[in-house]
């Protein structure tokens, strides 16, 4: 009897200890930031610690993917976070849902040092803090002749060799845009020819991938030899399959911008503006670019060719990129998803 009593007391003590270790509530002068959460150490070193020292405040994070974080902000009515990081596709959705407030550009003087594309990509709302691109990657040992334009994806010699990004990923809808261009029509106006092209590419497709690691696994096990990818994946892809090359597309890769915005329910608007200005400063952008965190959007950042290799960098490259009109895309997306599902999912 005493044995059981002793054991249950021990158990109760454990429970009490567990509860006591539960996270404490936030203290005052806290800035809450919503972002993806990877690269924690580097971000801590180059952004979190320096900013906390500068402002004498504490940074707290809400992490996750674009969709769940945006959903949470929406359910909370625009409250709960002060600065929100999203890819441009998702920040456009946030804007359309009325979740963000316009940026007071007078409080962000560092905007002047940005590439024009990054300064006001979505009107009066948040600027872009990094830029990437979506292009074609292919295994040069198995694909001959090399890929030089988007239309090459439809080549007959690529039967069962391609993986397209799923329609739910960042790059997915871009495939529809590319298909529309191939058909010579504007897919936002009339998507029929674009989807006819997608039907035509179907025999080439093995599987549509949903995560970067899936795409790399498909390459490394030889299931595919061609895919679309974002540039940050190239380094890791080449480590797995050294013969993979980024296609030099004569019709240009597609730009992806990541933005920062201030939700309308933020309780620390001043501090939020300070933070945004901070991450757009040349010093921070130089540090994050040199250390493999994000490509810079500040024009004054100088990188050696070695450092620049992994990024979307340089005026020439950036000017040559295609832009996506997300307000049009978001309007068409629902219809596109349904049609894509019917082609691939039946």
């Amino acid at each position, binding site marked *: 009897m005493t044995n059981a009593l002793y054991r249950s007391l021990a158990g109760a003590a454990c429970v009490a200890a567990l509860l006591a270790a539960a996270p404490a509530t936030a203290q005052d002068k806290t800035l809450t930031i919503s972002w993806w959460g990877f690269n924690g150490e580097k971000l801590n070193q180059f952004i979190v610690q320096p900013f906390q020292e500068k402002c004498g405040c504490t940074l707290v994070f809400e992490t996750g993917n674009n969709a769940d974080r*945006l959903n949470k902000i929406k359910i909370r009515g625009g409250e709960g976070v002060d600065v929100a990081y999203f890819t441009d596709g998702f920040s456009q959705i946030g804007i359309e849902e009325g979740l963000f407030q316009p940026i007071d550009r007078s409080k962000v003087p560092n905007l002047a040092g940005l590439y024009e594309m990054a300064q006001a990509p979505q009107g009066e709302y948040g600027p872009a803090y990094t830029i990437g691109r979506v292009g074609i990657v292919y295994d040069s040992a198995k694909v001959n002749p090399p890929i030089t334009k988007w239309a090459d994806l439809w080549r007959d010699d690529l039967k069962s060799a391609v993986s397209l990004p799923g329609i739910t990923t960042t790059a997915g809808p871009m495939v529809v845009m590319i298909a529309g261009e191939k058909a010579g029509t504007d897919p936002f106006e009339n998507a029929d020819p674009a989807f006819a092209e997608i039907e035509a590419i179907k025999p080439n497709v093995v599987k549509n991938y*949903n995560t970067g*690691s*899936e795409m790399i696994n498909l390459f490394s*096990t*030889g*299931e595919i030899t061609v895919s679309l990818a974002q540039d940050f994946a190239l380094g890791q892809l080449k480590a797995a399959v050294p013969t993979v090359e980024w296609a030099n597309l004569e019709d240009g890769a597609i730009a992806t911008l990541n933005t920062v915005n201030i939700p309308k329910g933020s309780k620390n608007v001043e501090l939020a503006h300070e933070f945004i200005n901070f991450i757009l400063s040349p010093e921070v952008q130089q540090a994050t670019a040199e250390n493999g965190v994000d490509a810079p959007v500040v024009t004054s950042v100088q990188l050696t060719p070695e450092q620049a290799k992994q990024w979307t960098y340089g005026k020439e490259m950036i000017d040559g990129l295609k832009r996506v009109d997300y307000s049009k895309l978001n309007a068409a997306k629902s219809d596109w998803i349904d049609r894509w599902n*019917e082609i691939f*999912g039946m």
Partner: protein
Amino acid sequence: MLKRYTGWTLALPATLLVTLFLVLPVAATIATTFADAKGVLAPYLAFFASGFRRTVLWRTLEISLATTAISLVLGFLTAYVVARAPGRMKSVLIIAAVFPLLTGVVVRSFAWLIILGKNGILNNVLVGIGVTDEPFSMLYTQGSVIVAMVYLFTPLMILTLVGVLENIPEDVLQASASLGASPSATFRQVVFPLAVPGLIVGAVLVFTGSFTSYATPQLLGGERQMMMGTFLYQRAMVNFDWVGASTIAAIMVVITVAVVLAMTRIAKRLNPMTT
């Protein structure tokens, strides 16, 4: 007087938790599907009108029923052996059975790539022993989704059944044998009916788990094998259409409840002690 309500007193905390924190919030979410301007049942009619959606629903039913049936058989036979294993061995077997559940879905799909892929182990063996010249394309088919799901749910079935099979008294089995029943007759008329409550619990858990499954179909089936779980996720997280997502959820709940009730009824017929 209190004795009459002992049952309710014991079951009350759990019932309250489910009612307050599940039934009410989810009902509130599903209620939004009835508020459509086009009519109370509009979203549901739209669902069943779409060929694609009907295909998704049907496919999900097929896959989850197949998964349940296969896991039931494999799980039952394995649990029978595990239940009769000596002490230490039994602990090891139970824990080993659970390891598949601990592999993250990404690394699991990689493992299946290695096994079932074009250059995978299985194809290399088949080509090596001359069964075929060209490697089979085994991935991203309904079959591969079922294999991956069975992999996930057989452990669940084994764990559910070990406890039940352990409790079948040894003397009952020996009595049956001593009365002249063959091993298969003992199995059919003694072991099986006694195991039915566990089989049903296992079947319910596996069916509902596979029917609502998201991560496994996503990575191992992809868009070609879209299921209700992946479709719901797409609607909610990509289209931001929570009314649509809730409609799908409501349909899923109705179907799973119907299947569960049907299974329970069959079970009660086989063994009236089933709860």
